[in-house]
């Protein structure tokens, strides 16, 4: 009986995701008449601009949202289980702040040293920004790994993570203070998050990196389940706590780093989605929670992307504004319902 419910639940999320994905392709600030959509799909003779908008602009954006949503949600789940803290998310390890610092250094410092305004340090700035975010995130990740391999106490690790986040944040602020206006503007916009940064050209690298990370998470479910029993039990069951936490941090940090590198620091998805998964499936079994969280993360990111590009609205809302705006009420209602 329970299995049937689970199967239906998962199927429901997948169907919802598919509908959202299709909506993402066909709804946007430019209205595409319904019959034109079929013409585009059937590659019939049609206005070429629609093809470009749907295949070269909306499709990569929807795919980015899908992958980023899955990656952030599952990274959040890993953090929450590892730290046994329902408020844990990837930003807690200082990884997002590390990425921001990396980007800050590229956008802001290069401007300050050379006196050249604006992030657009030529064409490589777009690539440079992603690379800097990744390097920043990975640096913090290694620092955290070094601590986690020495320490068993998860609370201490959370505090260290938060401190590193503050440290990185303050260095970023100092950089901002000495930077040129255009650079700060560029940095602020990057910080708002966007799913449109990947595009068709960078999609293969982005997708491959994310899929590799997501794939690894499936192997962690057994150890995550053991961790839920508490560290003492887990050790008694033969789990190497330190090695295990290093692996979990590595996988979750890797996923966060990639997403932040390409989409900016996207908040909330990592924190909220695991709660929704736990509530919907009333389970703490990671063999179920990992795929469920990924799928819910995908759906959520697609909803957000859809709202950010509302039809009839010429501009693109910042993704970060939308994720929290949509996500926060959902999480509150989920928590209230589960406490009843």
């Amino acid at each position, binding site marked *: 009986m329970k299995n049937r419910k689970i199967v239906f639940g998962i199927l429901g999320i997948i169907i919802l995701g598919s509908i959202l994905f299709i909506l993402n392709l066909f709804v946007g600030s430019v209205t595409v008449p319904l019959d034109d959509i079929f013409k585009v799909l059937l590659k019939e003779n049609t206005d070429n*601009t629609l093809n470009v908008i749907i295949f070269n602009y909306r499709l990569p954006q929807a795919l980015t949202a899908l992958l980023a949503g899955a990656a952030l949600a599952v990274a959040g789940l890993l953090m929450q289980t590892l730290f046994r803290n329902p408020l844990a998310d990837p930003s807690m390890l200082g990884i997002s702040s590390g990425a921001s610092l990396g980007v800050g250094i590229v956008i802001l410092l290069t401007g300050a040293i050379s006196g050249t305004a*604006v992030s657009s*340090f030529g064409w490589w700035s777009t690539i440079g920004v992603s690379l800097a975010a990744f390097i920043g995130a990975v640096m913090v990740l290694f620092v955290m790994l070094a601590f986690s391999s020495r320490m068993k106490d998860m609370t201490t690790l959370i505090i260290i993570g938060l401190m590193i986040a503050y440290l990185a944040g303050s260095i970023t602020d100092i950089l901002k203070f000495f930077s*040129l206006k255009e650079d700060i503007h560029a940095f602020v916009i990057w910080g708002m998050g966007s799913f449109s940064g990947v595009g068709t050209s960078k999609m293969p690298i982005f997708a491959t990196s994310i899929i590799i990370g997501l794939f690894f998470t499936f192997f962690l479910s057994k150890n995550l389940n053991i961790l839920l029993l508490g560290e003492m039990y887990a050790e008694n069951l033969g789990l190497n706590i330190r090695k295990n936490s290093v692996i979990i941090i590595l996988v979750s940090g890797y996923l966060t780093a990639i997403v932040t590198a390409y989409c900016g620091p996207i908040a909330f998805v990592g924190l909220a989605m695991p709660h929704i998964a736990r509530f919907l499936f009333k389970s703490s079994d990671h063999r179920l929670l990992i795929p469920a969280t990924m799928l819910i993360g995908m759906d959520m990111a697609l909803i957000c992307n859809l709202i950010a*590009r509302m039809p009839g*609205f010429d501009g*693109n809302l910042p993704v970060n504004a939308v994720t929290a705006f949509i996500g926060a009420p959902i999480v509150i209602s989920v928590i209230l319902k589960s406490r009843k």
Partner: protein
Amino acid sequence: MKNLLFICLSISCILFSCGGPSNKDQNATLAKSENLMEYTSYIDITNYKSGYYINVSCPWNDKSLGEFYLYPDTLQLPDELETKLVIRTPVKNVIAYSSTQWSVFLELGEISRVKGILESDYTDNPEIKRLLAEKKIEDVGIETSLKTEIAINLHPDVILYTPYSTVPKTEIGDLTGAVMFPFADYLENHPLGRAEWLKLIGYLTCREKDTDQWFNDIVTRYDSLKYICQNVENRPTVFSDLPFEGQWYLPGGASYIAQIFHDAGADYIWKDNNSTASLPVDAETVLSKARDADFWRIMNSTNTEYSYNRLAVENELYTYFKAYQNRNILVCDIRRSGYFEKSEYEPDLLLKDFVFAFHPELVETDYQPHYFYKLTNEK
């Protein structure tokens, strides 16, 4: 008792200020005298006795940003101006917030009056760089963070500031003892209105004859070129700028650059929009509306040159635009051309650059663009 005293004082103040003969005279003078500014929307200058009366209005609401009197320092100040904000001319120590301010002093040969500038990192002007190095001009920080102590030490009589809401003008004015003058040039949406602000520097330095001549020449050149373009049969379409993180920030249809496009005999794709500010527009909207536009105007703020290949690497969506495919992209290298310092006072040259691109037959064949040139670099 205290209250009573206060009320008595207030009433007497009101009585005096309303009934004083000097004030009546002043209003009468103001009503009669002619506005010396022809194209500006946010500044009015009128003659007042041997000086000038200036009113700067606020672009965001109907309130005034300030009323000022300029009065020659060789003459005795009329009594009624004792309580007003008065700038004695010619000014001696000026702090300039933006390059559009000091560039006029420089052009007039009056740069020695400028003692401090802001945002000095942005300038490549060799003369200013030399003066900064020789400490004849001080770097007074940036807009968001003024080096207040240095500013006080310069004993400015006037600080020309850009009227952002974040500038703590009262505090800076109190600390430095200077008159804070809002220089709202960048908010003017007519190219000639923006250029006309140079006349203010003329009044401040008692060089109004020179600046009047300077400005009138600009108007003549601008208008004659505009006139030639007025009746062109074919008006090419044009759009502007590059996106950041999927979002285009396009100039509004009533903006400065939209006006120049229009005067240069082109149709800006967003000309029907009546905003003066920039519009955040989704990339797909730009693609659907501007894909077939004939020209594409781009600002390059880096030190390196753009090329078609570099644009394609930056975003492959660019390659779908007709202006890209037909190699009709107009680029301005901001730093190299001194765009922010000079273009405001050379709107005729800006206009000519665009006319040269849109209607080359209307401009001499060997014309060399000053700001916007057609991008030819492939790699």
